[in-house]
């Protein structure tokens, strides 16, 4: 079966910093794969490289058996970035943001049809934000904003979801809600690659995981990857590349 996401020999540098070094990984259709590694281990960089947001030095990426550009052009890749990237002062409502997940399905003037509004409603319902649909995007908690961005990816009807730390700053109830949405999606045949620092809940969500530390240190069934020895290796190696940037604790 063609993997939903296949990464071969991916190498990414930011000027002098080597962020990813010869990374190989594959995510099968209908599979959730966890991406684990310390701050600065290259998780976000991997997502950005897959999406063509940073130039790669070497290696190639295939999405659903084709080029990533092709998959993006068909709206098949959904991406939820680490939240602090969003402009909180921007004058749009929650529903406006979720609607943006469907722009590629609309005509060039991006005029929403009934189906688009219905998809927005359904997506908001799924992440339990229906009551907040009319709120300005800045007047939400971090966890709520994270769920808005997930709803946008749901409304997009993407088949491959890339989630960068979807559980950071999210309370237990929201995390459970988000996890159950993800499980439903996976059951429907979507593929998910998600990075996380929450090792406790990872085995429930992802049958497979990848341990990253600039290179892939281990991959396979989550329980076998998250062994004390492997974790000591991944988290005890010191900071990869240069000093980490302020993303960790919030």
């Amino acid at each position, binding site marked *: 079966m063609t993997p939903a996401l296949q990464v071969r020999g991916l190498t990414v540098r930011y000027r002098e910093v080597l962020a990813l070094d010869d990374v190989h990984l594959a995510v099968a259709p209908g599979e959730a794969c966890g991406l684990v590694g310390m701050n600065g281990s290259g998780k976000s960089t991997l997502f950005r490289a897959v999406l063509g947001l940073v130039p790669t030095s070497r290696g190639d990426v295939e999405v659903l058996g084709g080029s990533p550009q092709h998959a993006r052009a068909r709206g098949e890749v959904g991406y939820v970035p680490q939240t602090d990237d969003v402009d909180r002062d921007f004058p749009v409502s929650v529903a406006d943001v979720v609607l943006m997940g469907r722009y590629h399905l609309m005509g060039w*003037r991006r005029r929403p049809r009934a189906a688009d509004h219905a998809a927005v409603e359904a997506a908001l319902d799924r992440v339990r934000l229906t009551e907040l649909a009319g709120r300005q995007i800045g007047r939400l908690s971090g966890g709520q904003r994270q769920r808005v961005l997930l709803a946008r990816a749901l409304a997009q009807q993407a088949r491959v979801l890339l989630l960068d730390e979807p559980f950071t700053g999210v309370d237990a109830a929201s995390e459970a809600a988000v996890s159950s949405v993800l499980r439903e999606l996976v059951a429907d045949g979507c593929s998910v690659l998600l990075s996380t620092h929450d090792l406790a809940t990872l085995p429930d969500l992802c049958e497979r995981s990848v341990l990253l530390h600039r290179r892939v240190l281990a991959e396979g069934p989550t329980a076998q990857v998250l062994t004390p020895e492997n974790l000591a290796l991944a988290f005890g190696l010191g900071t990869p590349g240069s000093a980490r940037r302020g993303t960790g604790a919030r």
Partner: protein
Amino acid sequence: MNLDLVTEAFGFAFMQRALLVTVVASIVCALLSCWLVLIGWSLMGDAVSHAVLPGVVLSYLFGLPFAVGAFVFGIGAVALIGTVRETTRLKEDAAIGVVFTTVFAFGVVLVSVTPSQVDLSHILFGNVLGVSDVDIVQVLVLGAVAFAVLVLLRRDLTLYSFDRVHAHVIGLRARRTGAILLGLLALTVVVALQAVGVVLAVAMLITPGATAFLLTDRISRMLLIAPTIAVACAVVGIWASYALDAASAGLVVVCQGLAFTLAYLFSPTQGLLRRHGALRAGGRGRQRAPLSLTAAEGTGVGSVLPSAETDGTRAP
């Protein structure tokens, strides 16, 4: 207000033409300003409007319509800024500053060596009371084009301003949208040039959007409020210039500044007085980070700055 004086003022043909040109320029600038303010590209408006100076002078020299030279230099400056920013480690504001001051200075030199038919003060501060028929046609045509593109592409422009990474991810050509926005900026500056001149065009490209931002938290409403305020300021400013016999462009921009001040003080959501009252009452509900007009953000895909974490949670 004395109604007779109003009818008298706008009874003159030259006043009507001045009003027409100023209103058209105000509407287009105000629409564009909404996105510029939201992206943090106000400085870009500053840069493009100054950089057109040599283009205008050269157009006069070669007998071309001023719009041609202005547009070419406007686009050229944008391209040059982009190149400097992407090929060096300079921040965008430095790239903008270096390019536009140099190009502007080149224009000043050109003016100084050009025979007297070029009146620098008209280019710098506008000459709306003396517009020719050709100028009016140019302003109307270019203004209509800019207006149509801005209105038709408004949702793409908003997505680009809000989250260009997402635009890229769903396969929309974010870079192209950015290029269109900058092209529209050059076009709009050309329109505004005729009405208020190079220096004050900057104000028309920032103030209405900033004012509307203070008054609402929906971009769809900003896009109505900003042009409405700008048109009102155009009418009042032009009329006041007749009544006071003072510089029309200056008065239009002063009016816009006054409108901003009123919004700043009395905005129902973010007004200073409202916030002051809320603080005294012990509430701290709706405060927001102050609007930063100078924050220059990268133009490339993927260069998304984290927004300031300065929401109003300071306890009294």
